[in-house]
């Protein structure tokens, strides 16, 4: 999997914590695709171009349980995501009994 910065476990806090992320590493990745995930909330940066379907497969996520949103727009599985895109992978399944 082509994760450039292996931040699959970074939380928002860690992403902005200077001790965990040396400044040199931040600037190097500005051009990448920025992906936001939930449950738990975290960010990753990936190298484009990449189809939405591929992205989900690489993240080991099921399409039936997620929506992919680029900017403000919903995108279908065959859409190609590019470097610089801001992407949210949003889980749609809610639990509990209520």
């Amino acid at each position, binding site marked *: 999997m082509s994760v450039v910065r292996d931040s699959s476990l970074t939380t928002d806090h860690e992403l902005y914590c200077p001790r965990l992320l040396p400044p040199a590493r931040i600037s190097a990745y500005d051009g990448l695709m920025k992906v936001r995930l939930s449950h738990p909330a975290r960010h990753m940066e990936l190298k484009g171009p990449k189809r939405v379907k591929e992205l989900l497969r690489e993240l080991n996520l099921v399409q*039936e349980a997620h929506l992919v949103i680029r900017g403000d*727009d919903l995108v*279908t599985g065959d859409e190609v995501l590019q470097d610089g895109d801001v992407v949210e992978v949003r889980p749609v399944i809610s639990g509990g009994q209520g």
Partner: protein
Amino acid sequence: MKCLKCPGKAVIDLPRHNSAFCKACFTEFVHQQVARAIKSERMFSPQDRILVAVSGGKDSLALWQILLHMGYRADALYVDLGIPGYSATSRSKVEQFAEAVAGPQGAKLMVHTVTEQQGAGIQDLANFIHRPTCSACGTIKRYQFNRAAVENKYDVMATGHNLDDEAARLLGNVLNWQQEYLDKQGPSLPASVEGFAKKVKPLYRLSEREIAAYAVLHRIDYIVEECPMSKGAKMLLYKDVLNRLEIESPGTKQRFYWGFLEQQARTTPASSSMAEKDQAALHPCTTCGQPTTSEVCGYCKMMARATAKANSR
């Protein structure tokens, strides 16, 4: 990917219908599914007053919006359970939606706060009486919604349960052979006795993903975070299993649940006999007057135990 119905660009693919839709055509598809649910299950008519149970999540807010859009008279109730780090956020989502979307269409929002009414948040309460939070939560919500619907003379109470919710619940009920629950798992439960509101689930023909897509496309600002109590809930496991089957064989969830409904329609006695059975077993709770099979209803028993515990501390 192109829209199946028009030359526009698709924004969502729907494997179970072997199609993809643009925003306008998808919106039409969603409205059609809800209209079909309302009609085929005889849920309500344009004259009826509907009380929507809202939680701040995608399903209930989308349901409220769709019903208002279709011209129905729909108010809503939110029950604030005082769950730390969750209730405040979900409540503010509901209030914002009511102010920006529902209010201008003449609909109103009621808010019941459990903490105010009972002096304890749901977690304290559940801990007190040694019950899982979700089970205490379910009892409270069912009770509050039913009572509000009956007391304020709504014709019907609507919840945002979707295809995934119903299929997952059905799987759970089948795995444990919960016959009595199976009998009452339809999307439209009549008001069998005085004191019980009619309950309907107009979103039962739409998957969770389809409703989330509707919410995103229509800029409904809902709470994406999960209730912290739902971690490890059985329902999530059942939904995950069903979604894995769905990928291998699109349409599995709807075949499972809709097939069950067809089966049920053929084999179970009409709702009138269910009402008779209920009438024989139910009478008013001696504390609150709501119908119950025992002397004191489950809600009042739970609250009495919680109060006794609190006073003895």
